[in-house]
């Protein structure tokens, strides 16, 4: 009897391996550190992230498969891994100041961020529904803990628990969808599913197959916070510790898109007509609900939560288009969104006080006079979010919408543009407070640590650089398209 050894290729998961090893080392080191020394864990994890990023960059252009084809590290996966690593690094940089202030300086923070990143990376490079599910669970479990990380704070606890309950619920849909797809095709390999479906029209017409696709779409929609599966977002974003909110709004959302794109485009092209309709509706709902509700939010974290819902809607526009520029636009958008959103959250951390009693938009009154440079930086991020040129956000939206126009979805692009015009209002409100209102009370001089300073510089350079010279990044994103 021959035992078939699976083909293992550790090269295909090298970035994941590095982070996992570093994370485990950190867990061990953590035991020996005093509370005020936990920042060393941050530096160590930055080293790990840096090395992983280096591996990602050198692997560019050389796709590798591993584990009998259940992972594929192609340019698509690599681009997303880059986004996750940048997001993780920026989060680690802004976390220290926050956890010290909130007195929740527990060492587990850094390993959890790294494990979550490993999960995201597996989602991006998974070419088997099981790998994707595995990645998603690694990510989600870490995030549940991270959302409730400030365990003495009631709101943070609430966020963690809510996220856990709803996340587990949505995972059920996803898993059910995967099971149905498996039932209809007899395989969980993404490429195999496509082959089976292409070979036989009976499979395509099987309702199991269709419902499987729909339920998977629901599961992913939850991850990317698309309406009507967005309800958790505002509560969780508001309650979670601010650096974690920043983290969640960037990487995990991108990971959801990575898996969503790969599953629909590679495994289920036979159902393209069906899922395009679905994405169209999700895109319109997500943009519109996100933007309209954001108009009335006073808490800035909550406002940015609804704004992030709206941004997922814009990305869905590019996804609906399904062409090269639209899909590459998503990659571009996710990366630049990481810069602008984490940048904005970094400012929120700086302005916040212990227990975060001052997260309202009105707490930014007079900020522009007290801290002109920080306010300018915040303005850059807000403008980018609003999609005003020459910031990166404008270019991103431009790619997404022009992709939709090129694919013939002119109306979708029109709704998108209309939405983004409406969104200006609530970003502008923050600026009105910053520049046109007198401070309500004497607020303290903001203390800024070096890591946060570095974060802001990286984010500003990212937002402006990708806005003024977008060609390079977009070129990379287009090279990352295997479809």
């Amino acid at each position, binding site marked *: 009897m021959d035992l078939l050894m699976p083909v293992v290729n550790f090269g295909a998961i090298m970035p994941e391996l590095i982070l996992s090893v570093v994370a485990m080392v950190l867990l061990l080191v953590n035991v020996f550190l005093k509370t005020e020394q936990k920042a060393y864990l941050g530096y160590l994890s930055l080293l790990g992230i840096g090395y992983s990023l280096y591996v990602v960059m050198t692997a560019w252009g050389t796709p590798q498969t591993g584990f009998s084809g259940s992972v594929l590290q192609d340019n698509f996966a690599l681009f997303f891994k880059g986004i996750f690593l940048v997001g993780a690094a920026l989060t680690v940089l802004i976390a220290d100041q926050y956890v010290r202030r909130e007195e929740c300086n527990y060492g587990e923070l850094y390993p959890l961020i790294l494990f979550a990143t490993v999960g995201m990376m597996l989602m991006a490079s998974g070419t088997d529904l099981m790998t994707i599910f595995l990645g998603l669970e690694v990510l989600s479990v870490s995030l549940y803990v991270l959302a409730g990380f400030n365990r003495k704070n009631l709101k943070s606890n609430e966020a963690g*628990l809510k996220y856990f*309950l709803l996340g587990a*619920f949505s995972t059920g849909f996803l898993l059910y969808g995967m099971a149905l797809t498996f039932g209809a095709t007899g395989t969980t390999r993404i490429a195999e599913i496509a082959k089976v479906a292409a070979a036989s029209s009976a499979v395509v017409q099987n309702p199991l197959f269709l419902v499987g696709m729909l339920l998977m779409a629901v599961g992913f929609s939850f991850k990317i916070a698309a309406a009507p599966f967005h309800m958790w977002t505002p509560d969780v974003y508001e309650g979670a510790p601010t650096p974690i909110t920043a983290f969640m709004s960037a990487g995990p959302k991108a990971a959801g898109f990575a898996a969503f794109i790969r599953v629909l485009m590679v495994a289920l092209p036979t159902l393209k007509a069906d899922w395009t309709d679905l994405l169209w509706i999700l895109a319109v709902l997500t943009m519109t609900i996100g933007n309209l509700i954001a108009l009335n939010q006073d808490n800035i974290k909550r406002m940015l939560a609804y704004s992030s819902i709206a941004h997922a809607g814009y990305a869905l526009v590019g996804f609906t288009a399904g062409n090269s520029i639209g899909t590459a636009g998503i990659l571009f958008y996710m990366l630049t969104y990481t810069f602008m959103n984490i940048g904005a959250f970094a400012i929120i951390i700086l302005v916040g006080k212990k227990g975060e009693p001052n997260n309202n938009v009105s707490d930014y009154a007079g900020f522009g006079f007290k801290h002109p440079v920080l306010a300018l930086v915040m303005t850059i991020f807000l403008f980018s979010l609003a999609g005003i040129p020459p910031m990166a956000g404008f270019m991103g939206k431009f790619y997404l*919408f*022009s992709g939709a*126009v*090129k694919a013939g979805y002119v109306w979708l692009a029109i709704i998108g543009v209309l939405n983004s015009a409406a969104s*200006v209002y609530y970003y502008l409100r923050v600026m009105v407070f910053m520049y046109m209102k007198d401070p309500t009370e004497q607020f303290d001089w903001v203390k800024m640590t070096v890591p946060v300073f570095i974060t802001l510089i990286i984010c500003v350079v990212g937002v402006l650089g990708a806005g003024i010279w*977008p060609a390079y990044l*977009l070129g990379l994103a287009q090279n990352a398209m295997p479809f």
Partner: protein
Amino acid sequence: MFEYVWLIPLFPLIGFAINGLLGKKIKNEKIIGGLGTVMVVCSFIVSALILLQLLGLPGEERHFEKTLFTWIQSGNFKADIGFLIDPLSVIMLMVVTGVGSLIHLYSIGYMHGEEGFYRYFAYLNLFTFSMLLLVLGNNLLLMFVGWEGVGLCSYLLIGYYFHKKSAGDAGKKAFVVNRIGDFGFLLGIFTLFWYFGTKFNVWTINFHELALQSHLLSTEATFGVITLVTLFFFIGATGKSAQIPLYTWLPDAMEGPTPVSALIHAATMVTAGVYMIARMNFLYIKAPQTLMVVAIVGAATAIFAATIGTAQNDIKRVLAYSTVSQLGYMFLAMGVGAFTAGIFHLMTHAFFKACLFLGSGSVIHGMHYALHHADHHEHCAHAADVDPQDMRNMGGLRKQMPWTFLTFLLATIAIAGIPGFAGFFSKDEILWQAFANPLHGDLNYVLWGLGAVAAGLTAFYMFRLVFMTFFGESRLIPEAKKHLHESHIVIVLPLVVLAILSVVGGWIGLPKLIGERLGNIPNYFEHFLEPVFANGHVAAAEGAHLSATLEWGLMGTSVLIAVVGISIAYALYIIAPTVPARFVARFPRLYQLVYNKWYVDEIYDFLFVNPCKAFGNFLWKGFDVVVVDGLVNGTAFVVKNTGGGMRYLQTGLVHNYAMTMVLGVVVIVGVYIFR
């Protein structure tokens, strides 16, 4: 010199960077203001050199594109950071940098001692940079970047006195209204891009390439894609250039400092819409229906804003409505295919309206100073509460401010359309083209009639302004009157230059009729612009079928109307100043209606603003709160008030969130299974 065109926007950008970053440290007003001004003057010099070089070339070679680098490249789509030099953009360059330099200089005097002096100059330089980008951009996207940039600066400068609530609100209003216009602009870009791409397989947004392709289009007799595209762009133009229905922000924008009103809200930014249509003339000429809409909106705005201008008492508001009305003329010109005439009026208007605004600034400055100083006297402690912008508090100022008066008078004569002055030539050209163009059939006579009546109203309200401000008895409290004096030389100097331009600026575009009489002087302006509007001229043929007698007759009529307008103003405000009050008392409703700007703001609030707010509130409170929590609102309320946070979250919201998800799943799957 063409190679160095990038220097033109670079100078103000440097000025912005230095003043914006270091201005707070520099503190010295002379250095900050001087730097800001010198940077724009440098741009002006480069622009002038480019103009000279352009004049040295034969007409058909007057087109040059300088590409700095490729901005966006994706597949077959490409957009450059590239600058376009042709007669049209060079005229705009001269106006923006020329008038801009004068206003920067003026601002040094006007803004003296204001808090945030550096901020003002940084914004003003940033504005100039954006405006130059808008003018020079060789593709729609780059133009859009400039378009957004000027909007942003306009917003920042309107809200400059942010501690005044009205200023902040006005800034917000300008921004929001402009976003509606920008939305139209973006839709236009997308639709045009898509249409040319699918029709000709040319995916481009470069003006020159678009113009080349548009030769292949046939004129759209019925409503088609080009009509739609041009209408989208026109929506953009109505926002930026304050036309019906999006004009409401401009009068409110007068909350900004007066030089800002002169530069942004009279001479340059608000003309961006006109420039954009002129730039896209090759498309508009293919869509006669859009042209008709443009012409009607332009003529309607011209007369509508003019009526409001007759009843305002705030000196800057009169000028604001006058600007809206004059912009209406420019759009009327665009709408009848007289692109040259529209750009000509854009230029002369920049001269005389900048002069008028700066003159009003000089008056306000003087009034403010006088009232402020009178306030220190014991027996008129409330002098500072007197509105220095209200013409009812002025009168007889010509004695104290002779230079301001003289320059203001010259500019007023120019705008009123008295022969020999700049405004006459450009306005008369527009009216003649409105009458004689072959595009709109009998509608022409209506357009001409509206334009002519608006011209009469313009003459009336402008001279009303002059008479109320500079003539008659002073209505200022005597204590304050003692402190009135002429403004500083840096304020007067730009006024003099602009006044001279308001007089002679029109002579480069003499109408053929007059030019022939004076010994065959050609219309230099028209010849210069000819290559840009080569297409346009075919449609707006000179109306040669009409006789010279008719043209003389129309010219005479419009002059007569202007003289009548001035005479009425003279009769009402000099000879019998009590009549207006009696008129108001006799027709209070009509007066209130006009004084309150036909209640358009209130109507917009009722129709759009309030419903939008309500809808947003409904979605938030209605959808998320009522529908989501509503099912167990009672429970949640009880739990919230009795139990701790944990119990609240277990029984309350999560349940409902999950419920919504299930509903979503059921609907999605149901629709797909049973469709």
